[in-house]
């Protein structure tokens, strides 16, 4: 574990339609950017331990599209896609994001990477069109969190047998 050298994620709601995620990493920003934009690396971290990523398409140019698909452990397929709007390598990446099960709720995500002393602060600003979309986005995380809790409970239950 490298918990001591990394930060913990902070999530704030700066306005009715925004979500701001901040996290520090014990690595220079060109490596964070590489891990963020290279399909075979994305597949290793993006699904965390919640499933298997089957598609990580990255056409990294302005107007280029991205698409991520994951089969969650419960069997549900979740897919996201969007388009790159602004690219400053190692610094800033602006893209649209659509959760394909809720195709109307397009958000604009701004990734910012700043480096100090070999450490990188990453921020993601998610801008939704409406508060309802923003709230639904947060609740999708809540369902995932609940699923994790249930999975953990199951593991504990198995060891008790």
């Amino acid at each position, binding site marked *: 574990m490298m918990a001591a050298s990394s930060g913990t994620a902070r999530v*704030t709601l700066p306005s009715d339609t925004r979500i701001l995620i901040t*996290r520090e990493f014990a690595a220079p920003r060109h490596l964070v950017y590489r891990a963020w934009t290279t399909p075979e690396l994305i597949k290793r*971290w993006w699904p*965390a331990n919640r499933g298997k990523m089957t598609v990580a398409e990255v056409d990294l140019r302005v107007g280029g599209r991205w698409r991520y698909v994951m089969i969650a452990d419960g069997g549900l397929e979740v897919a996201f896609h969007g388009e790159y709007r602004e690219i400053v390598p190692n610094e800033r990446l602006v893209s649209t994001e659509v959760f394909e099960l809720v195709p109307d709720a397009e958000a604009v995500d701004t990734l910012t990477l700043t480096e100090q002393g070999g450490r990188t602060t990453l921020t993601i600003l998610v801008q939704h069109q409406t508060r309802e979309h923003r709230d639904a986005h*947060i609740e999708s995380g809540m369902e995932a*969190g609940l699923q994790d809790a249930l999975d953990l409970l199951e593991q504990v239950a198995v060891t008790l047998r």
Partner: protein
Amino acid sequence: MARAATTSDAFNAIAEPQRRQILDLLAPGELPVNDLVALLGLGQPQVSKHLKVLREVGLVDVREDGRQRLYRINGRRLKPVHDWVSNYRQAWEERFEALDQVLNELKAQEKRT
């Protein structure tokens, strides 16, 4: 998540930016309504209206101190909002922990070459 009307739900009460601003101003400690009016640059009736909503959902408490009414934040009522966001945060944290591992490997590779 089904939500009740503004007057009975902390989520809706804090959806209004000026009410969030009031909570921010009250976070360090209690303030009389006149200070809030001055700090917000709003009219007294408007501030009173927001304070009424915040009181009704229990996000702020008020006490009389001589001729002043002092308002303070009630953190316990913000807990459901905090819990709501913290599950989303947890989802990202797991993802970031996986990213930490990838970054460690990239750093090691870079050292070797």
